[in-house]
């Protein structure tokens, strides 16, 4: 069975392990990771909360990253040269802009300083809003791709230069 040439990064098949290292792809991930980390760290420093307070900075960057990731994967799915854009946006920016470990630390600290109620509320709100954000992003990306293909019909297979 022939492999789709433009596979999703996050659905990388095992065969990809044998592929040679693509330094441009790694560079795109590194650059995106720099931007995502800077944005998250900047917001975390600017919106530092007292122990037991709702972690607004982490909550905001995680939802933004989930929205952007959903948009990026569905918008770039149809693109012929989407690999580097996806490495930059999805693996780089979204991966570094969002964080899981900080959420775990915040769950523990919320439970210790404000009780189980707020900790559970933060965990469930993050997951529910995160799922909603990724779904919204996917839908927006799909519409964006559909609108682009109406303006400029896709190149017929084999006709690309």
């Amino acid at each position, binding site marked *: 069975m022939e492999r789709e040439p433009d596979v999703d990064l996050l659905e990388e098949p095992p065969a990809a392990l044998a592929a040679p290292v693509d330094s441009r792809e790694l560079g795109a991930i590194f650059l995106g990771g720099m931007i995502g980390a800077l944005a998250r760290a900047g917001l975390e420093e600017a919106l530092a909360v007292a122990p037991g307070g709702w972690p607004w900075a982490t909550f905001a960057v995680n939802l933004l990253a989930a929205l952007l990731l959903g948009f990026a994967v569905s918008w770039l799915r149809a693109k012929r040269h989407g690999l580097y854009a996806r490495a930059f946006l999805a693996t780089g920016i979204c*991966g570094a802009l969002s964080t899981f470990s900080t959420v775990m630390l915040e769950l523990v600290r919320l439970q210790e300083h404000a009780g189980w109620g707020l900790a559970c509320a933060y965990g469930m709100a993050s997951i529910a809003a995160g799922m909603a954000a990724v779904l919204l992003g996917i839908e927006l990306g799909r519409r964006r791709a559909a609108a682009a293909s109406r303006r400029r019909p896709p190149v017929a297979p084999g006709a690309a230069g």
Partner: protein
Amino acid sequence: MSGIALWLAVALVGGAASLARYLVHGLVEPLARGRFPLGTLAVNVTGSLLLGVLVGAGVHGDAYLLAGTAAIGSYTTFSSWMLDSERLARDGRLGAVLVNLGASTGLGVGALLLGRAIAGG
């Protein structure tokens, strides 16, 4: 460390941690043969363990900004966790969705507490 140097370091560390995430994800994900998003789970649980160690060791200030927020924060990911869950849901694998959401949270909190205890927090 001065302001600009510190934030430049945050960016460089974040970029390097993103490459580490990509590497570990790529090594672990194939083990599940596409049946479960094991790569994301692996980076998130190992990152939570490391963050627990940092917190338990009392790392704070600029050192925490670099090692905790920039490095481990960028190494772990929330957005891929959500996208993986959405894909399992779209495939109609609701049990796997619940396992991915519940086990990640449970193992993540457990790993953080374990790391903190190991480091003497």
